[in-house]
Structure formats: C-alpha cells, structure tokens
C-alpha cells in the first residue's frame, strides 16, 4: 500500500526548474545551439589563446613576410593561415585577438547594463518630472548616430581600447534605460507589486527584489544583442585607428593595418574580418534563441 502511494507520488512531475525550462525552449532552436557552441570555442580561445596559439602574436619572422595560407602555392604548415606584412603568424594573431573582442563585449555589456538598469529603475519609480528629465537625456544621447558619438568620445578621451569600451558603453546604455523603464512601468500596475507595497515593502525592496526579476527577460536578450554590437563597434573604431593601437592583435586594428595589401595578399584582410563575422553571427544566433526561450508570448503561440 505504501509502495503504491509512493509510486503515485513519483508520477506527479515536479515543476521543472527555471534553468531546465529555459534549456528546453532554447534547445528547440538549432541555430541558437550552434551559436552557443561557437561562442564556447570563442570563450575558450579568449581565455587560453596565448597557450593555444602556435607562435607568439607579436613575433616577427622577417624572412617569411606575406606567406600565403597553407593550401596556396608557397604556403607552409608552419603558418597555416599565412603571415602578415611584418611576418607575424596570422592564425596566432587571430587566436590571441579573440580575448580583446571577448573582453570588449563583457565589459561593455556589464557597464552599460548595470548603469542602464539602475537609471531605468529610478526613472520607472521616480516622480514624473524626474522621469521626464532622465528620458530627455536618453533621447539626446540617442539622437547621435552611435558610431559617430563613440568616435568623438574616443577623440576626447584619447584613442585606446579602454576608452573605446567606455565610449561604446555610454552609447549603448540608453537602450537599457528605455527597456527597464518600460517593463517597470507595466509591472508596477500589477497586483503583486501593490500587495508588496501594502505589506510595507520600501522603495528599495520594491525596485530590486519585487519588480526587477520580472523585468529581466528583455534585458538579457538586449545583453546578447549589445554584446555583438560592442564587438562590431570596437572593431570599427579599431579600423578607423581610434580603438586598440598596433601591434595589439585586435581584429579591427588588424584589418586597418592590412588595408594597403588588399590587392596583393587577400588573406591578411579576409581572416580577421571572417573572425569578426563568425563571432558576431554566433552571438546573434544565440540572442534569437534567448528571445524565443525567454519571451512567454512567443512560447505559447
């Protein structure tokens, strides 16, 4: 008898944990899973790059400048993807370069999201006049094309990868403010917030513990999107000479250095750009999967 009861109890399924539920929906999207794998490789390269790379990223093999990749005439297995005009190994530079893009993405998303969420929460809970002021300031930042604003900010701060990250974070931050504020405003109307307030929760508790967890889904999706935007913008700034400075093997900077050789050595131009494209594409694929898995409206349909 007892056995039968316990067996019955086992059949009643537990509500799956939030993480498992998320993974269930994420897995549906094949592109997103592929994106996740590519991103995992990218993250590994970012962490262990210098130990994986066959050569040093800055060592110049002067005798072997502009060696083509291995499958072309004149290529050798020593330099699988060829060498650049200064005789540095392309593959090693690309592998070591992964950490710059990864770092840019992480720092920009963390800085922009933290700042944006805080300001957005304040705007959502503040009296109308303060809310208006905050949103007008965000409108002002959004009125400038993002790359142009980042470019001018970097010109002020001085060209370097750190300053490029700061500039990009400032430019991307208003998107988080708008998203957070919009979801705070719709959540605030709901009964559970009223009941928490009636129970005596202070503003601080209402903001961070009651409301914020319910606003996170769109913010996480935005995080994936701005990760890829940050990588693209940092590479663009590097390409214009306003990001990481040579001899840093940052992908955009590598492209800028390679520009004059485009008609003589296609591989110096092709591979860094391909690295940027594949990384950004993988993150965007993941972002699409995240959106499908986190957006309850899409789930039901």
């Amino acid at each position, binding site marked *: 008898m007892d056995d039968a009861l316990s067996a019955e109890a086992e059949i009643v399924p537990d509500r799956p944990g939030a993480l498992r539920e998320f993974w269930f929906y994420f897995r549906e999207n094949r592109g997103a899973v592929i994106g996740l794998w590519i991103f995992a490789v990218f993250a590994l390269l970012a962490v262990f790059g210098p130990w994986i790379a066959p050569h040093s990223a800055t060592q110049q093999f002067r005798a072997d400048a502009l060696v083509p990749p291995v499958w072309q005439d004149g290529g050798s297995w020593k330099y699988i993807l060829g060498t650049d005009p200064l005789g540095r190994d392309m593959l090693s530079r690309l592998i070591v370069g992964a950490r710059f893009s990864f770092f840019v993405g992480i720092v920009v998303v963390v800085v922009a999201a933290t700042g944006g969420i805080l300001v957005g929460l304040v705007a959502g809970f503040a009296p109308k006049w303060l809310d208006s002021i905050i949103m007008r300031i965000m*409108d*002002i930042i959004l009125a400038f094309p993002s790359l142009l604003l980042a470019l001018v900010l970097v010109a002020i701060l*001085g060209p370097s990868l750190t300053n490029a990250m700061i500039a990009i974070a400032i430019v991307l931050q208003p998107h988080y403010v708008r998203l957070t504020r919009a979801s705070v405003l719709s959540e605030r109307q709901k009964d559970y917030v009223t009941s928490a307030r009636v129970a005596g929760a202070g503003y601080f508790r209402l903001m961070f513990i009651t409301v914020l967890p319910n606003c996170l889904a769109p913010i996480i999706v935005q995080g994936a999107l701005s990760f890829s935007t940050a990588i693209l913008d940092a590479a663009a700034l590097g390409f214009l000479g306003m990001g990481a400075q040579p001899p840093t093997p940052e992908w955009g900077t590598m492209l800028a250095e390679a520009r004059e050789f485009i008609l003589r050595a296609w591989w110096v131009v092709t591979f860094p750009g391909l690295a940027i*494209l594949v990384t950004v*594409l993988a993150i965007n694929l993941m972002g699409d999967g995240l959106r499908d898995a986190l957006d309850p409206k899409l789930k039901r349909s």
Partner: protein
Amino acid sequence: MLNYVLSRLLTFIPTFIGVTLISFSFIRALPGDPIVVMAGERGLSAERYAELSAQFGYDRPIYVQFWEYLTGVLQGDLGTSFVTKRPVWDEFFALFPATLELSVCAMIFSIVLGLPAGVIAAVNRGKFFDRALMSTALVGYSMPIFWWALLLIIVFSGNLGWTPVSGRIDLLYYFPDATGFMLIDSIASGQDGAFRSAVLHLVLPTIVLGTIPLAVIARQTRSAMLEVLGEDYIRTARAKGMSPGRINGIHALRNAMIPVITVIGLSVGTLLAGAILTETIFSWPGIGKWMVDSIFRRDYPVVQGGLLLIAVMVMVVNLTVDMLYGVINPKIRKR
C-alpha cells in the same frame, strides 16, 4: 491631431538644446587648445594668443559662449573651419548631396530587395526558402561592413576590374556641380560615358551601406507579415476564395507595412553611422568622411557643427516618422 503634433514638437525643444549643449561641451573637452592647434607649428606670441582668444570669444565665461553659440546656431551660424576657413554651414551643405545620394541609393537597394525577401519568407514560413533567406539576413545583419567593403573591392575591383575603388566619378570628366547629385549632374553635362562612370562608382558603396538596412527590413517585414497573416480578416479573405497573391500582396502587406515604415525611418541614424565607414573606405566626399577627417585634423568648429547638424537631422526624421505613424495609425494619436 493638432494637439498630438504640438506635444511632439514641444519635446523637440529641450532635446535640441541638450544636443547643442553636448556638441558644444564636447569640443571644449577635446585635448589641445584650439588656438594653439590653429597656429600650427609656427607657434605664436602671448599678445597674438590673447588677441585671437578675444577674436573667437574664448576669453569670456563659458555660459556666455554657449548662449552666443546657441543664438548663432539658430541663425545658421556654426562658426568657421580652422582648416579651410569656410563657414561650417556652407561646407556641410556642399558635401551633403554626396551623402544623400549614397544614402538614398542604399535605401532603395535595401527596400527593393528587403521587402520581397521578407514577404516571400513569411509566405513560405518554415520551408527551405524561408530558412535560406533568413540565414542570409542574419549574416547581413552581423556583417562588419568595413570588412565587407574590402572584400567587395578585392573581388569586383581587384579580380574582375569592373568597378572603380574610390571617388564619385572618373577624373576624365569635369563639369560644375549644378545640383551636387552626381547622377543628375553627369546626365546634365551631356558628356559621353559620364553617367556610366558615376553609376559604376556608386555600385559598391551602395551595396555596402545598404547591407544592414536590407537585413533589418527583410527580418522586420517577415515578422510583421507573419503577425498579420494570423489575423481573422485574412482568414475571411481566404474563406471567400480570394487568390493567395491578392491576399498576401494587398490585404496583408498593406497592414504589415506600418512597422516596416517605422523601421525604414529609424534606420536614418544607422545609415549615417554606416556612411562614416563606407565613405572613409571608398573616399566618398560626403559628410561621414568629412567628420572623420575633421576629428583627425582637430578641426573643432567642424566637429562641433557637424555633430549638431547630424543629430538634428536624425531628430527631425524621427519626429516626422512619429507623426506619420500617428497619421497612419489613429490608436497612437489618442494616447
């Protein structure tokens, strides 16, 4: 309706003042004293410095300078370039047609390809065509366009020799700019081959600048179409026996266009940001290249004025889109 327009216009004013303040203070924050930069390598004496400082008004309190700048801006006075000594306003509008021509071509390119692609993908939802188109769109959306430009140059200019690498027209042809739009001017000049040359110069920059808007429009059209295709009135039309072409092309597309138009309007900022990279790579003499060159030359009045004019342009376009949206969709106006 009038109330809606007025309230939208009212929010424009503080944003405009803020944008002016930002472009004004950015330039004060740039490293290097503008007068020392202007003097160049010759250097200058203390008296001459004071004289110039007074001439440009740099010796007065900062709020007085801002007030004068703001009132100057409203009268169309944005200062004078340190390098060319010409008014910033004149320089901007001399170069603007080049950017406008490129942007309009890029926009036409992306709409002409993006709308049908989105519609076809939505109608064939989940099938091979849909997957292929949307994968391509995602690649386009993730494209680092400065690299894309270099690749196109390698293939079409280097290997095939079809298109020129830079500029707006071959040096062979010379004619005064009547309108500033090379496509129109080259026809008006009546010179043999001038128009062909202008078109060939436009092809690659148009593709490069249009790639991201193309991907965005295709994705947006697809999702808007999918939403509309699920509506009851589409099912009614289908039940009445209307042909699929008529349902998709007329009933669905018309309503799907509303969000798409917004996206098209809002991509003006994206286009201008893209123009910075595209124009720099193709040596296209427009606003984007002018801004980058001025930043490198530390030509403060140009950076300040250009930043302001570009921001105001984006704001005006966004405002217009907002209002048009209100005209098309009465639900928004009421709010």
